[in-house]
């Protein structure tokens, strides 16, 4: 792989090395890690702040209203106003609540969601923790957040919170399966579970034009679709935002939370969304690779940021567009559509890898078989999912 040596490309690493050059080796390792942590928290903290603003602005524009525009120019100071409001609000803990668990739930949730940022490669040589089993680490950390959701619901000593926590858990457990299954073919194709290895496997261009990103293979596109739908559900985003549907389910397991703890839950949600989008970029969209050889002069971390922001705007767009699913529709979608599709996709990926040597006239055949394998089950299952249900008739009492 060609390594670009432009100053801008290596600026973050050079800057860090320059800052810690005077320290002895052991202390330097510690200081380097500390700088990584501070950088991640600062960047994603600010991203969280402005993501809330962008979301409110975009939702406002979609609904034909201006959105927040009072605090600062274009409403740019709104996130900080929100932060001050949240910090100064009274923190109400129910008298009957399990005090320790009630306090621990947001802390555990946030801690595990921050852990997931550790293994994402943000650019060339810009991965905080280069593990051999990085993908497993990521999903281990993100699945541990479910425990915190339960703690929040149970510790509140409120039956609605508990119901909502069980509902949220049913959703999270259901969608974790397709999420993990859609990642398996990536490991199959790239032969590694390390995130840097997966990005490196997607380097280069076919005919110098089409990047070798996994999303441009039939099974990759299907896996990407399954991954993104599951990611929407895993991060409690609309149309799967049942866990905290503010308007009708009284914010679910967060009913008894207020002030800063409530803000922490939302911070964890946005962090989870950013981390899952970052993982989707890494797994399917070539990570920090540029889309064209001519565009390689732009630093790799800028490409990662562009792809990440594109996915995040997609999340916001979906929230503005789609209505919320009911819990039975939601679990049916997971078990009857996404899980079978992800399993079939495993076969498709296997076929794609076995037929990698096909040449000439076999090449269109390979594409045709793979596309049939992807689209056929999707169409069949999708049709059977909706049969016999619609159209609903409403009777008013």
């Amino acid at each position, binding site marked *: 792989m060609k390594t670009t040596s432009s100053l801008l490309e290596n600026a973050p690493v050079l800057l860090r090395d320059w800052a810690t050059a005077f320290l002895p080796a052991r202390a330097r390792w510690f200081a380097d890690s500390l700088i990584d942590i501070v950088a991640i928290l600062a960047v994603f903290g600010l991203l969280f702040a402005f993501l809330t603003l962008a979301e409110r602005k975009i939702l406002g524009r979609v609904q034909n209203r201006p959105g927040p525009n009072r605090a600062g120019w274009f409403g740019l100071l709104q996130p900080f106003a929100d932060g001050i409001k949240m910090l100064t609000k009274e923190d109400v803990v129910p008298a009957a609540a399990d005090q320790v*668990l009630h306090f621990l739930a947001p802390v555990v949730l946030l801690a595990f969601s921050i852990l997931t940022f550790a293994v994402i490669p943000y650019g060339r040589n810009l991965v905080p923790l280069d*593990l*051999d*089993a990085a993908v*497993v*680490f990521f*999903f*281990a*950390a993100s*699945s*541990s957040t*479910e*425990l915190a959701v*339960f*703690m929040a619901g*149970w510790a509140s*000593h409120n039956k609605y919170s*508990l119901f909502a926590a*069980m509902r949220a*858990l049913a959703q999270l*457990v259901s969608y*974790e399966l397709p999420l993990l299954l859609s990642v398996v073919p990536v490991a199959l194709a790239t*032969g*590694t*579970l*390390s995130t840097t290895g997966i990005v490196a496997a997607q380097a280069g261009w076919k005919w110098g034009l089409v990047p070798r990103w996994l999303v441009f293979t039939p099974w990759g596109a299907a896996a990407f679709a399954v991954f993104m739908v599951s990611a929407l559900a895993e991060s409690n985003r609309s149309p799967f935002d049942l866990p905290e549907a503010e308007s009708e389910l009284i914010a679910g397991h967060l009913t008894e939370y207020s002030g800063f703890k409530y803000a922490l839950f939302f911070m964890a949600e946005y962090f989870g969304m950013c981390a899952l989008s970052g993982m989707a970029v890494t797994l399917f969209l070539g990570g920090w690779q540029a889309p064209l050889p001519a565009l390689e002069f732009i630093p790799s971390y800028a490409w990662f940021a562009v792809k990440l922001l594109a996915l995040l705007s997609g999340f916001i767009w979906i929230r503005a567009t789609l209505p919320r699913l009911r819990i039975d529709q939601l679990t049916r979608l997971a078990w009857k559509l996404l899980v079978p599709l992800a399993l079939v996709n495993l076969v498709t990926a296997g076929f794609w890898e076995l037929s990698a040597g096909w040449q000439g006239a076999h090449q269109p055949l390979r594409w045709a078989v793979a596309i049939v394998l992807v689209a056929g089950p999707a169409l069949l299952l999708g049709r059977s999912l909706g049969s016999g249900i619609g159209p609903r008739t409403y009777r008013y009492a």
Partner: protein
Amino acid sequence: MNAILLLIALATLGTAIVAMSGRNLLHSVLLLAVSWSGVAAFYLWAGAQFVAFAQVLVYLGAISMVVLFAVLLTRRAREDFGAPHNLTTRSRFAVAAGAAVAAVLLWAVSRSPLAGSKGPAPTVTVRDLGRQLLGQHAAALLVIGVLLTLALIGAVVLAAVDSPDFPEDAP
């Protein structure tokens, strides 16, 4: 290095003991989760990254959920979360079952030929691990899969038994 191991062992065993002796079932489950992550920390200490992450993924992500769902779906009120009445018989059986498992494990460990602890630890990549698991040890992997499926069915059967305490729960 050994101080870290001691700390991990204390945390793992301590939380497990508190979990077993506590009267609040939900607290016990959450403490058990801490104990399981202690086991993961031990794997990390021993240099087995993949096993450590898999331990967290399976135990904290899945098994704790199964236990929580089981507890919540089989109890009716908050007051029920205390320990059951016939504690002595249950604990006798529990100790017997635990001792049996421990005996089998100890027997297996003492029988297996372990390389001496001298020399540097081998670096095993996930790739090697996968090749070993799906090549040489594929049969063992399949047996474990069948065992887990059986455990799942067993759990469903256990949970579905209608208890005389709540006649209205009977189908």
